[in-house]
Structures are given as structure tokens and as C-alpha cells.
């Protein structure tokens, strides 16, 4: 009896961990979509890029904490460069060109990573202070590192929420999500805001990448599942809606965790099936106001 309950709780927390990581990545994606109307196919590539930067920083300094701070900033730097020098130039050519450009970016990042770090899995060890298990009662021993991920994600998200809902910048960003043209007409330099949001979005993905690096190990395909799940989250949650992304991310996280437990073969099918059903009923997603 107790072991069954324990399994449910363990899988529930597993789902929560994955859901939080997913939300870290997809919150940036959904903000970018809301503002610029681009579904950035290269978003998960920045997640992967940050994990590789984390590996590189670890090799130089040997400190995971330094990596946690530096690697996402580097990823964000590349994100800003990509926005400024690539995406902005094709903005006038329409959505299809932008989608194809981000597709090309993801391809180039993937191949560049292979050139610099090779195709093998690189192992990142969990820092000393976060190894080991913690007893949650009911005979459940849970890895501290996974709980740490939840904490990091929560801290980051509270920080983001404060910026988004309590500052002038947040007000501008939220207004731009609703109607970028109007914000621009009011005299706000929207291209700079776009660039900033793109940077913050990739920074969030970068934090998720560093957090996930010890769990998944670092390899060129690590963005694949995260990327696909992320798109499912953003599309089902409603494009541009943070609340929708939050609910969808946790939902997908739990679906994944319990799917692995009960129907391991069908996990990806469940995720996509979920998306197809949501879109068939409500093409705008849970909280989306417009179609993609």
C-alpha cells in the first residue's frame, strides 16, 4: 500500500521537476511568440547550447555555481545576437521566412556544437552539496538535486513575475504582447524591447539547460524531446499566454512522468495526442486569444 502511494508521489515530483524545466524553457518561447509572432524553432537549441557552455565553464573553473550564472548569460548573448542580426532582417518577409530562418539557426547551432564538442555524451556531475537523497517521509528517498531544480525554477519565475507585473518594463512587455503596433505608436522603442525579451527568453532557456545538464547528460540530441514538448506546451497553452504555458507545462510534465510509469511505449504519443485533441477542440489553445 505504502509503496504504491510512494510511487505515485515520486512520479508526481518527477513530473513536477520536468514540468518546471519545461516551463522555464517555454515561458521565454511564449513571450517571444506573443511579442514578435515568431515561433522560435531554435529556442530549444539555446537550451542545449547553455548545457554545453556549462560543461565548458566547468572545465575551466570547476564550479557548478559559476556555470549556473555564466552559461545562461552566454546563451542569452547569442540569442540577442541572433535576434539583432538575423531575425530582425527577415521580419518584413513574413512568418514563413522567420520560421525557416529559426529552423536554419537550429541546424547551424546543432552542427556547430558537434564541431566544437563532438557527438558523445558529456557527463556533468552534480555538485557535492547537492548529491544524495533526502527522506520525504513514507519511505520515499528523493534526490536533492531534483528538488533543487524545483527551487531554482521557482526563484527564477517569481523574479520574472515581479519584473513582469510590478515594473514599468514589465508593463511595456505585457502591452507589446497584446498589441506591438500600438506600443510602438506610443513612442516606445519596440525593437529594443524585442531584443531584450528575446535575450531574457533565451536566458531562461539557458538556466533550464544548465539545470538539466547533470540529469540528462550533455549531448547534441538533448534538445529534441525538450524542444518538441516545449512546442506542445506553447501551442496547447495558448500562444503568448504565460498562465496557459504554466498549466500546460505542469500537465505535460505529469503526463510524461506517469506515462513512463504505466505506458512507457506511448509517452510521446500521449503528449502529441494531448496537443491534437486540444487544438481540434480549441484551435487557440487553453488561454490563447488568437490563432497561430
Amino acid at each position: 500500500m505504502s509503496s504504491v502511494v510512494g510511487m505515485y508521489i515520486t512520479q508526481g515530483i518527477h513530473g513536477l521537476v520536468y514540468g518546471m524545466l519545461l516551463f522555464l524553457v517555454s515561458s521565454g518561447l511564449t513571450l517571444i511568440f506573443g511579442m514578435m509572432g515568431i515561433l522560435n524553432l531554435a529556442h530549444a537549441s539555446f537550451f542545449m547550447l547553455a548545457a554545453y557552455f556549462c560543461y565548458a565553464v566547468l572545465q575551466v573553473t570547476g564550479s557548478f555555481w559559476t556555470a549556473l550564472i555564466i552559461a545562461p548569460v552566454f546563451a542569452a548573448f547569442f540569442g540577442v545576437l541572433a535576434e539583432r542580426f538575423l531575425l530582425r532582417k527577415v521580419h518584413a518577409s513574413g512568418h514563413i521566412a522567420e520560421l525557416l530562418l529559426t529552423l536554419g539557426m537550429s541546424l547551424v547551432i546543432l552542427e556547430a556544437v558537434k564541431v566544437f564538442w563532438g557527438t558523445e555524451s558529456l557527463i556533468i556531475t552534480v555538485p557535492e552539496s547537492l548529491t544524495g537523497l533526502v527522506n520525504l517521509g513514507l519511505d520515499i528517498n528523493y534526490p536533492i538535486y531534483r528538488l533543487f531544480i524545483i527551487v531554482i525554477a521557482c526563484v527564477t519565475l517569481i523574479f520574472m513575475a515581479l519584473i513582469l507585473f510590478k515594473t514599468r518594463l514589465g508593463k511595456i512587455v505585457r502591452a507589446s504582447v497584446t498589441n506591438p503596433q500600438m506600443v510602438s505608436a506610443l513612442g516606445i522603442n519596440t525593437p529594443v524591447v524585442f531584443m531584450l525579451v528575446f535575450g531574457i527568453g533565451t536566458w531562461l532557456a539557458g538556466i533550464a539547460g544548465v539545470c538539466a545538464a547533470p540529469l540528462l547528460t550533455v549531448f547534441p540530441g538533448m534538445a529534441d524531446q525538450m524542444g518538441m514538448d516545449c512546442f506542445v506546451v506553447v501551442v496547447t497553452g495558448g500562444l503568448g499566454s504565460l498562465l496557459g504555458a504554466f498549466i500546460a507545462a505542469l500537465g505535460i510534465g505529469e503526463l510524461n512522468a506517469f506515462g513512463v510509469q504505466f505506458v512507457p511505449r506511448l509517452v510521446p504519443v500521449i503528449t502529441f495526442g494531448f496537443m491534437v485533441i486540444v487544438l481540434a477542440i480549441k484551435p487557440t489553445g487553453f488561454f490563447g486569444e488568437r490563432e497561430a
Partner: protein
Amino acid sequence: MSGKLKLTIYWLIGLIIVIILPHVIGIVYTNVLVTFMMDAVFALSINLLLGFTGLLSFGHAMFFGIGAYAAALSLTHIQGFPLIGVIFISAISALLLACIVAPLLARVTGTAFAMLTLAFGQLLYVICLKFREITGGEDGIAGYDTPPIHLGFTNVDITDPTNFYYFAFVVLGLLAFFMWWLVKTPFGSVMISIRDNAQRVEYLGYRVKHSKALVLIISGTVTGIVGGVYALFHNLVSTDGVLTIFVSFYPLMGAYIGGIASFFGPIFGAGLLHVFDELTSRYTERVDLVNGLIFILVVMYAPYGAVGLWWSIKAWLFKSKLQKA
């Protein structure tokens, strides 16, 4: 000489070149030509959606893959399965798949269309990967017999590269001709008007969703047949070979690099990609890195691809000549 006679002579010369080419360039390049033809028709069928109807499909690998798997499975499990049956069954399987996904896909456009096709493609990929007792998973299906062509009096063995080249040329040429004919029909005009302004087409009394579904079904079926030819050519069908995202991306890149604004652009683009591959693989292992960079450059600076570039060069030359005169 009248224009029509001139055109006929050009076509005849082209046909003769196509026929004698495999005897001139040798087996290796004959096989390269066959892959080029498959890529070209794949790119054409993607461009039917992208260039002519304005729908970006990221999941065309699903049609390609289901065609290839249908061919491989029927050749493995049915004794003495005829070649024409292979083509037929790949077409039918892709058609059925397209009919299943079309009602949902026809409702959406733009980003949602791209993401949904991607999702369906990935869905089929993971299903094929997981149900390995049928599909062989990552190892795939291999070692089935390739049936000969029955010509009544004789059987032509298509395991011979030159014969396969002729076979592929006939099948893929017919598909390309079919698509070329399609865009010239009134239905082709409807497709183009949907791309330009779907709402107005709706007001004119055409059924936009039905037309989009039909284009998707036609494009999917053509891709399925290409998949069947792929299965015959490689004698190996695996998830990595026919169903990954890159199977959809590669022809898409070809179509875009060639130019989506013209019908023949994708053929040109597929050829260019093959040339790039051939050149870059001599210097580096990371062929896709070069392809990706070229692709980014094309998207940024030449949105109408190589054909668009050619047009602007021609216009520029023409203008300068006028100024001189």
C-alpha cells in the same frame, strides 16, 4: 522555325541526354542522379504546398515514411509482389494518411499548420520507433527482394543501377509532369489565390478548406510514391532514414534554395544541394553546417532563391542593355 517545333527539338535533345547520361557518367553518379531525382520530386511536392498554397509543412517525412514502409512491408510479407503494386500501395497508404490528417490541418494556416504537421510527423516517427516488431525500429526493414518490371515479353531487372535510373526517371518524371499540369489547371489558380488572399477566395465562393485539404492530399500522395521509390532504391527502410525531422527539412531547404516562386525552382535547388554536398564533403565532415549557413543566407538575402536571383540578374542585364541603346 516555329516556336513549337523548336520546343519539341529541345525536349527531344533533353530526353536523349537523359537516356545516354548513365552510360557516360558511370554507376556512382547514376545513383547520385537517382537520389537527386527523388529529392527534386519531394521538393516539388513540398513546394506545391509552400510556394503555391502558402502552407509550410514541417512533417512531410510522414508521407515519405509511410510510403516507404508500405512498400518495404508488402515486399517483405507478400511473395511475388509486383512492382506496380509497390507504387500503388505507397500511393494508397500516403493517401489514407493524408485523408486522416487533412481535416484537422485544413482548418489552420501559418505557424499552427507548420507545428501541427511537425507534430503529426513526430508522432508517426515515435510510433514506428516503438513498435519494432512490425517496423524493425531503428534497425528498420532490409533485405527484401526488388521485383522486376514485367514488360509482357521480358522482365527488366531493376536492381541494375542503369535500369533503376530509367525506372525512377519514368515514375518521378510522370509525378513531376502531373504536378506541373496541376498548377496550370483552374485548380492551380485557386491554390495560388488561397496563398495570396484566402479570405477573398472564400468570398468568391470557393471552398478554401476543401481546396487546402485536397492540395495536402495530392502533395502527400506524391511524396508517398517517392517514398516507395526510395524503398526500392535503398532496399532498406529505417526510422532514421525516412521519418526523422531532417527528412522533411532537407527537401524544404532544397525548395527554398532553388526558389519557391517558380515551379522548377525546387528541382534546381535539389540539384544545388547535391552539388554543395559533393563539394563540401571533400573538405569537411560537417556538411549540414555548410547547408544550414547557406540556407540562412538564402532566407535572409534571396527570399526567392536561386531562380529569383537569376531573374533579378536578368532584369539588371536587360535594363543596362536598354540604357546603352
